[in-house]
């Protein structure tokens, strides 16, 4: 047995204080296997030790919440089917940032695999996936070639895994900033459906019940993945490639079907996937949740390599594995199902009453740790925080547009706003035939065949806003997600968050985290969207440079099943309304906009202001307009402001618009400010639109009409923008591919 030296302890990212705590829990020094087990369970990734005290501020309850944070995924009830069965959705977001930088294809693929297991381990069948992706700029002279390779690898990895598994990837968002060049973000949001009486929890219930290992064999891949995901990138990070797991979506598909079928037999007492920290995490968490212990013998664990040590088996993050507890005497029913699907299923141990996680190797005890302190009593840090790190500039630089139409083309061709079809056409976004609204809209809509209702999903985050003001940006993010849902007619009911930040040991980064969480908590409370689970990804830094603080939010909403209006203007000659009015704007609040980024090429000031009660009224009005079919299209204003929202509305059917505004704002602000609480609708029934808006007390400005193929925007008679829709669309549609396949100019 190796000596436990201070160097060995440090190499496991365990601090001297943490080591003291381990010794006091065990009443002795740990052996190397035990030290490894503590190091993964107490890693930032598994224990949330830096964020836990602040995560408690988030709202987690509502009448619809069946299961909040702490399980593998959050669960909400969505109503009954015609036979009176109650149906639920399970959903969660997970990041796979660090692995995706080191090995983009496998990193992204296993990110999808991991979150899918979190969903079906609870008994739900996954029906949709969305992704939030952040990369370095494709056209950067120095990092561009690598950024392009990462984009290609990540997209291919997501496609490979999701397509083969058979879950539709129904949308998401992709943005580019230099701060992501050395640390891309890959956040995957997955959702599944099931009956309430089919929910399974990750609990090792029933003393004497057999513990069964199912799925792929254990190999040496991914050892210390969770610890890696909790450290900054340094020069030798690329040497960590063997830490990245390798995914097999075919195996996962078999595991899904076998698990759901085995659950139907009624012989399973509890089940949990082996994700981060593998066998270690599942054994101690299942015991801890049930107040029991699990004893296993590693000689029964199916292995794909020979000569693996207990340390390696316990810490392996080989994919597509599950640990389940069967009711004693009924284990053969479980084993039979897995045999039918051609999967390994082996009894590896049993549930004990002593609260210990006991690991044997051919009978000899190699690790013996009390489950609860290991799983739930990781150190909790009240890390010091000051004021958030933010750009120095508050005041706006002088800017003035020479040609606003040219600026619109600049936005259309920009990496953030251009057509992402190249990405999402590589994803099967229709499999399982539930996708009512797929990629390219404001929100995705999935029908639930069993209940005759639909769920809408939206994903949002804005690193630039968050860098300017984390608290305000977090509120704007919640508001925008809910506004996206309003466009489809859905009522927001729950949320999941992924907190991507830099090193929490730096007080100015910790301040970003705290403020973002508090802002999110306030807004989620206000909009009635409890956070039922999520993920924290810290230490997103490379060589000391942090990413933009990048919280990402996934929100789900509920609606009657009907085809949503969609964002596209459908017919010429319809009235165009701006619901919510022109909004307020000033130079300082232009600093985080796409206009500032793409045209002024700078970042300053503050994100837009938000009036939450007004936002809620606007959303209620638009939701009613959509559900009562008063409008033919609905699209929210966000990135790129009014001009960009109008532009996107013209693309679907190349239906133009003639718009006349009446405002004192200077044109750059009028067209491109990103003030929230505003949506564009087109209608053949203006009276209905005005009536609904009035009933909700929100302004509905009639700003023009849809037309044949040109987009013209005037303010008080002065033409600000005039272009052919087709030309602008061509520019928008070809931009991403041009950037990805650009020759490298050195």
């Amino acid at each position, binding site marked *: 047995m190796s000596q436990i030296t201070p160097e060995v302890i440090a190499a496991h990212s365990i601090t001297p204080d943490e080591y003291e705590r381990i010794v006091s829990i065990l009443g002795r020094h740990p052996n190397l296997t035990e030290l490894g087990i503590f190091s993964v369970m107490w890693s930032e990734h598994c224990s949330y030790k830096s964020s836990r005290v602040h995560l408690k501020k988030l709202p987690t309850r509502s009448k619809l919440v069946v299961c909040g944070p702490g399980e593998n995924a959050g669960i909400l009830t969505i109503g009954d089917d015609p036979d009176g069965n109650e149906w639920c959705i399970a959903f969660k977001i997970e990041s796979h940032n660090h692995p995706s930088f080191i090995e983009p294809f496998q990193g992204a693929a296993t990110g999808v695999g991991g979150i899918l297991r979190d969903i079906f381990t609870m008994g739900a069948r996954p029906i949709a996936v969305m992704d939030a992706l952040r990369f370095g700029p494709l056209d950067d002279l120095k990092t561009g070639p690598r950024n392009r390779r990462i984009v290609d690898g990540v997209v291919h990895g997501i496609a490979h895994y999701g397509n083969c598994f058979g879950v539709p990837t129904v949308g998401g968002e992709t943005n580019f900033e230099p701060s992501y060049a050395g640390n891309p973000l890959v956040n995957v949001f997955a959702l599944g459906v099931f009956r309430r009486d089919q929910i399974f929890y990750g609990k090792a219930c029933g003393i004497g019940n057999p513990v069964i290992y199912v799925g792929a064999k254990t190999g040496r891949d991914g050892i210390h993945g969770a610890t890696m995901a909790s450290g900054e990138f340094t020069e030798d990070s690329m040497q960590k490639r063997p830490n990245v797991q390798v995914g097999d979506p*075919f195996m996962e598909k078999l595991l899904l079907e076998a698990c759901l079928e085995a659950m139907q037999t009624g012989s399973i007492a509890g089940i949990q996937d082996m994700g981060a920290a593998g066998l270690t995490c599942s054994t101690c968490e299942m015991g801890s949740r049930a107040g029991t212990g699990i004893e296993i013998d590693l000689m029964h664990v199916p292995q794909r390599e020979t000569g693996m040590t207990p340390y390696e088996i316990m810490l392996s993050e080989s994919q597509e594995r599950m640990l389940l507890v069967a009711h004693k005497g009924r284990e053969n029913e479980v084993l039979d199902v897995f045999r039918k699907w051609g999967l390994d299923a082996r009894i590896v141990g049993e549930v004990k009453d002593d609260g210990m996680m006991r690991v044997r190797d051919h009978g000899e005890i190699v690790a013996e740790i009390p489950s609860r302190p290991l799983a739930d009593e990781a150190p909790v840090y009240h890390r010091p925080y000051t004021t958030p790190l933010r750009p120095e500039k508050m005041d706006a630089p002088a800017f003035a547009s020479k040609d606003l139409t040219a600026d619109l083309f600049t936005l259309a061709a920009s990496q953030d706003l251009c057509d992402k079809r190249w990405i999402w056409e590589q994803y099967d976004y229709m499999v*399982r035939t539930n996708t009512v609204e797929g990629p390219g809209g404001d929100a995705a809509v999935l*029908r639930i065949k069993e209940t005759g209702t639909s769920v809408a999903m939206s994903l949002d985050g804005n690193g630039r806003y968050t860098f300017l003001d984390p608290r305000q940006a977090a509120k704007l993010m919640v508001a925008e997600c809910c506004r996206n849902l309003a466009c489809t007619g859905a009522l927001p009911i729950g949320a999941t968050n992924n907190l991507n930040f830099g090193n929490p040991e730096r007080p100015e980064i910790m301040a970003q985290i705290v403020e973002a969480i508090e802002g999110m908590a306030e807004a989620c409370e206000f909009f009635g969207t409890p956070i039922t689970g999520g993920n924290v990804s810290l230490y997103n830094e490379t060589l000391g440079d942090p990413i933009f603080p990048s919280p990402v939010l996934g929100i789900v909403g509920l609606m009657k099943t009907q085809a949503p209006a969609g964002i596209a203007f459908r017919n010429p000659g319809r009235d165009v309304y701006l619901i919510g009015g022109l909004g307020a704007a000033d130079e300082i609040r232009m600093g985080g906009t796409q206009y500032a980024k793409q045209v002024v090429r700078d970042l300053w000031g503050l994100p837009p202001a938000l009036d939450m009660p007004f936002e809620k009224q606007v959303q209620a009005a638009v939701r009613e307009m959509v559900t009562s079919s008063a409008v033919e299209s609905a699209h929210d204003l966000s990135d790129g402001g009014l001009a960009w929202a109008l532009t996107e509305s013209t693309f679907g059917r190349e239906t133009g618009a003639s718009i006349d505004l009446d405002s004192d704002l200077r044109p750059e602000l009028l067209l491109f400010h990103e003030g929230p609480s505003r949506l564009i609708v087109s209608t053949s029934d203006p009276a209905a639109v005005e009536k609904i808006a009035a009933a909700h007390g929100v302004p509905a400005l009639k700003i023009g009409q849809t037309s044949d193929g040109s987009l013209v925007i005037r303010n008080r008679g002065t033409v600000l923008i005039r272009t052919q829709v087709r030309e602008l669309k061509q520019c928008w549609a070809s931009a991403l591919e041009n950037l990805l396949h650009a020759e490298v100019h050195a």
Partner: protein
Amino acid sequence: MKFGVVVFPGSNCDHDAWYAASHNVGHQAEFLWHSDTDLKGSDCVILPGGFSYGDYLRCGAISKFSPIMAAVRKHAAEGGLVMGICNGFQILTECGLLPGALVRNRGLKFICKPVPLTVATSDSPFTSAYAKGAEILIPIAHGEGCYTADQRTLDQLEAEDRIAFRYVDNPNGSLRDIAGVLNETRNVMGMMPHPERATDPLMSSTDGLGVFHSLIASFATQAK
């Protein structure tokens, strides 16, 4: 009429085909497990899309050895209806029930989108409900859908009116724009596009209903 949908390990459009046949078209449909040898009285066997056996080795190359395939071959030889969709088409070419092969898309990328097709023949149990030459919108979702065969086979397929569907804007490099083909006796068809995904007014198109309606009409005529 009864549809049997084969479930191979890795099939993932099995449920979609079953749902289209049972709910959207309103006929009987049942799953058939790949290691069984009984078609359970199915009148039309559907080999669904997906990634049977993970597409390992080659798409469809392992599935052709599944025990159910002996029963499917026998069913086809006796004139029974067999339709392969996407991965099912790949399996039918691998096991020799249809000529040619499906190779990687010309662009080397997976493509998912609704594409326009022309109905190349209405003289088959799979296409009789369409007018010959009609343009329909059906989704594709595949990485290896480029139809390939030697010159003589292609000529023969054309001469014998055995091309069921053609792409209007060829998305994957298929020779002669072929999207679906028939066997010599016209009771086996394979196609890369997914008609089952276009059978519901909530989805992008309902043009795929024609395939099912053709099958039902043909079965009704046969039964008389």
